[in-house]
């Protein structure tokens, strides 16, 4: 009788084994390279005219006709070693254009099987043409979820 009880307990335990899943993805599901604009004195400036950013190799517009912009968050490519970004600042009757080159390494990032796979980047170098932009500098090379400013863009004072 005791053995029957033991065996019954074992069977019940087998039937009772179960588990449940919960999806726990991060709220930050996009990875953006954050760039902020500064004057020659290192003070934050606002681009009052229209700013548009495109990238070489794609028709996508990364940042479309922004006004009063003091910083932008731009997606970087998943597989290219170097991204070429084109900044256009336009006003009444004029358009100024500069190109920023961002060298980087890319690595995939898995949060969970049920969350989207994302691509993190490590910026290794940055340079630009100098029509509006005076210089560019890396602040934080890691482009990951919500990591703050990555690149400082110093503008010519005359172009502000």
């Amino acid at each position: 009788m005791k053995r029957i009880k033991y065996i019954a307990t074992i069977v019940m335990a087998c039937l009772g084994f179960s588990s449940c899943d919960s999806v726990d993805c991060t709220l930050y599901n996009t990875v953006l390279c954050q760039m902020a604009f500064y004057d020659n004195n290192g003070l934050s400036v606002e681009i009052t005219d229209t700013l548009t950013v495109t990238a070489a190799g794609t028709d996508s517009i990364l940042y479309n006709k922004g006004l009063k912009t003091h910083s932008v968050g731009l997606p970087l490519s998943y597989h290219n070693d170097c991204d070429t970004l084109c900044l256009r600042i336009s006003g009444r009757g004029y358009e100024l254009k500069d190109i920023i080159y961002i060298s980087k390494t890319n690595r995939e990032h898995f949060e969970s099987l049920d969350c989207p796979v994302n691509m993190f980047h490590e910026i290794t170098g940055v340079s630009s043409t100098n029509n509006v932009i005076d210089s560019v500098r890396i602040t934080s090379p890691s482009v990951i979820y919500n990591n703050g400013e990555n690149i400082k863009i110093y503008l010519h004072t005359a172009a502000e």
Partner: protein
Amino acid sequence: MERTSRFICTLLLSSLIAIPACAKTSKYRVEQEMPPAKVLNGLGVGVDMVGFGMMLTNARFANMEVNGRLNILEKYFPVVELGIGQCDREGNEQATKFHTRAPYFRVGGDYNLTKKRNGNRLFVGLRYAFSSFNYDYSNPDFGDVVYDDHTPLQIEDMDGKMHWLEINVGVETKLWSFVRLGWNLRYKARLSNSFDERGEPWYTPGFGKNGGTTWGGMVNVMFDLDSFIFKKNKKKNL
């Protein structure tokens, strides 16, 4: 005649009273006279049926393992468990696939709480466990929408390691001759782990779904090798 009938009646009555008394005494004697358990009281090997069941039913993951243990004084049971954990799983929301197949091992012991030696055992136990493994992630739909680059993702042989502790309670009973059946419930707590910077493994062999703690269970079929061997020897001697 009257004397004889009185004697028989007295004998019957006294026997009715004496039989239960004798029975109690003999039972008491059996318990008292049970020889003390030997220091090395046996050797057993077993296999976990849950893991094989999960593998056959194509469950999300399966830990297939065998174990060996010593029986010391019928109280202490040092245990070694070796297994292979495998997992092939695709995400519900995304097309990301995870794969791993690697060995793991556990070492520890059980303590038998039952005092009677009637074939049933109630265990509490502790295990230290470790697994070093490689894992893969892949996603055929992975693509860069902004830059219009749709290269399928395939990352292989990422390294993972994990150390953890397990606390278990379980019962076991003798089914037949040298065959025993038991189950146990385990609480697993991670001690440390390391993994590839690109992402944690979804599953760790022997542990289960990755996390700080988890629960597990096993249904063991055990074979007492000593009683099996002794029985064979006895048959030979006969």
